[in-house]
């Protein structure tokens, strides 16, 4: 398979402030590639450079061999795009926006568009200003998918969608992959990327720090467990177990354990001391980044686990 998206030392500065630095990666035709990073890491800058909205300071980006900046019109023929901030003339209805963009693009199958609208449960007769954030996002998704483009570039596609619509979106992604088409999506939610993507690139502070298959990123998987005991608990029961990165007692009878990988020893120790409940939190991406790519070179950094984002 040939690379449909390729960047080479792609760099973008905004005046004196950092944009992205030396970003190099390639996406094969037919794969789903996730672009993962915290807010302000450079995901949107990379995506907008691919779309020819930003002119690279140095380096190159190509889509299907076409230069993303100088041949952007030809590139756009191949790409369906959802911007990170989807905004439109507030007086237009969803249907008008979709039809307008369909006319500019040409060759859009209205039946497929109708199916997309129905699957995402969008009411296209409302004006854009009347839509909630999630519904605006649905308009954005419909216009990105409707032309069945060879490549979809989606900036945080599930942001604002409710869980049911998120599931429908995941199905769309799966169908697109089954069609042999390519998806490049950005996210700051690790489980979402794990769920939908074949490969992942991780960007932090403007630099691409890791590109790997999702399966290899399991090591990043964090467990943050609150283990509750009937009486007073001791963090030392867990602190020295393998794979445990930290253990504390936020309340006298609760031990908060951070661990990664598989955790049979933790479960065994919990049972030995008569644990009565275990609560698991999804750690935030930020925590993982700070842990693995933190400024002090990988020391356990953030202890507090954030709740799941959905």
């Amino acid at each position, binding site marked *: 398979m040939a690379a449909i998206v390729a960047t080479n030392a792609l760099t973008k500065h905004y005046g004196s402030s950092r944009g992205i630095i030396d970003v190099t990666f390639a996406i094969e035709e037919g794969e789903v590639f996730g672009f993962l990073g915290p807010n302000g890491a450079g995901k949107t800058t990379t995506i907008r450079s691919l779309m020819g909205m930003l002119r690279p300071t140095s380096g190159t980006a190509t889509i299907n061999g076409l230069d993303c900046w100088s041949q952007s019109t030809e590139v756009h023929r191949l790409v369906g795009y959802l*911007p990170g901030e989807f905004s439109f003339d507030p007086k237009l209805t969803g249907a008008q926006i*979709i*039809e307008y963009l369909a006319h*500019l*693009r040409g060759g859009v199958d209205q039946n497929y568009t109708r199916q997309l609208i129905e699957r995402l449960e969008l009411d296209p007769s409302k004006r854009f200003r009347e839509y909630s954030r999630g519904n605006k996002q649905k308009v954005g998704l419909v216009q990105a998918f409707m032309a069945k483009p060879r490549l979809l570039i989606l900036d945080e596609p599930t942001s604002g969608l409710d869980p049911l619509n998120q599931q429908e979106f995941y199905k769309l992604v799966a169908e697109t992959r089954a069609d042999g088409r390519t998806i490049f999506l950005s996210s700051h939610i690790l489980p979402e990327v794990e769920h939908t993507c074949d490969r992942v690139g991780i960007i932090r502070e403007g630099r691409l720090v890791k590109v790997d298959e999702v399966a290899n990123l399991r090591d990043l998987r964090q467990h943050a467990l609150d283990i509750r005991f009937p009486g007073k608990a001791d963090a030392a029961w867990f602190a020295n177990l393998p794979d445990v990165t930290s253990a504390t007692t936020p309340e006298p009878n609760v031990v908060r354990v951070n661990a990664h990988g598989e955790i049979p020893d933790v479960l065994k120790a919990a049972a030995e001391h008569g644990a009565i409940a275990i609560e698991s939190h999804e750690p935030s991406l930020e925590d993982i980044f700070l842990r693995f790519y933190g400024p002090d070179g990988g020391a356990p950094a953030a202890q507090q686990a954030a709740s799941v984002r959905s």
Partner: protein
Amino acid sequence: MATGTVSQTPAQTWETPKAVKAIKSLKTSGSFWFGSVFTKSLRQARTPILAWGIGMGFLTYVVYAALKSVLGTPATANAAQQLAESFRFFGDPVAVGTPGGYFTWKYGPFIPLMVGIWAVLAGANMTRGEEERGSLDLLLAEPISRTRALVEKIGAFAVALLIIGFFIAIGALLGAASIKTPVSVGDALLAGLNISLVTFFFGMLALFISQFTRTGGSAAGWAGGLMALSFVVDGIGRAINNAEWLRRLSPLYYYDLSKPLIPGYGTNAGAMIVLLALGVILAVVSVPLFAQRDLGGIALAWLFPQEVNKPRLSVSQSLASANRDFSTQSVGLRALAAQGASAFWWIVGLTAYTLLLAGITKTMITQMSSFFSSPLLAKLFNGSNLATNNGFLNSLVFSLLPVGMVFFAVVMAFGWASDLDNKRVETTLSAPLPRWRMLLERFGVVVLFSVLAAFFVWLGVVVAAVMTGLSIDVGGVAAASFGVLPLELIAAGLVYALAGRLSAYTTLGIVGGLVLISFFMSFLKELLKLPDWAENLSIFQQYGAPLTNGINWGATIVMLVITVAFVVIGAWQFSRSDVK
């Protein structure tokens, strides 16, 4: 790697020197200007306060300073008085032979209308602006009542107008001093205050109307229309016998009752109080209307029946009708639909102004033919021979109208700049269309609107002439109407050249300022006595008097070439720069 202790979140990731500096500057400079809604609103208005205040103050100074040459002899002073008697439509002819009287007659109604443009925009967007941006939700989530927030905003608005009035007073004082005409500090300040009061009324009118519209733009449109209407009503009441009562309906009448700059005429305190009271009443009514409505909704919504029973269209029906909709077919047609309503009302306004003034031309000429042959009058009225129909139309219709038409084109072109700023073009730009083509389609729509405006102005003069039996040179009127086209296009072209690089409002400020300066360079040329080369920089000077002298083809071609250059620069830089 395993530890049993609580580890610290690394604070150094964000505590960069830049962040520390930013926080420090927040603590120092921000503490005053961001300390309350009042100071924050005042800070937000600082650019218009300075632009309008210094602009109008400077205009006042320049006019005063140059009056000595116009009213130098008793004969010219007498001629000016006679002229003003016949042009009652524009202003009350009181002591026009004196500097204070001449200034009051010619600029008395003009300055409040100019300041009124800002007042109406600011009033209409006082709550709607932030509501449309969504930032009002955030402000009102703070423990501050809506009443308090709006009262503080109104207070800041009033202070802003007082400062603008103060600048105008300073301009009058300096100007009068330069020609050694006595104007007391008190009278100058009262003249400034009078302008502050009447513009406060228009601002509060816009605020009041905005409580019943969903956007600041439509409230500004209605209030601006009412302001123009009040000017016309006041003028008609003054010009027509036995219609004096009509004037009392216009707030400008109460403004006109005070003429502090005319020695011996003085200030009518009662009229000033009426103006203040009218403004305050509108403010006091607007506050509870705002406090008790939905944010984003309209006041007294129960009075306006909702479209609740509108049958819901199926997905296929919505899509099919949107697919047939002409406005979804291309970028140009989309822009045509988006700006059509606004363009329609602009053209209606320009045509109505043309009809009105061309309509009264015949009456005025026959009434006052006796002294129109005076060359002094020609000097006072922009060099046209007023005894002929064409000369008269030139002075009356085609002196101010071109500025209106040019501003119309600038406002239409501004749509592009503001779309770029609002990040509304990103998705459209992802379509497989070159950027230059998008820009050209949008500019094409501005060209179309400009041509329509010129056509309807021409039609307005022709229809008015036919109806009143005025004999005109149809070709000459066409030259005068379509001769404005290059002026409209050059200004719109400049908007396109600057948009994308500069913010939309900076672009509007620069282009609007240049148009105004250019207009005054030509309109006041008898007073300013600029060197020829400087006068020729004015597009209005290049427009000349096509009705009597024909179109200046050389200048027209040069202006069209510059327009093309502006659009090419706009397209070139838009194609080559980052999308905001």
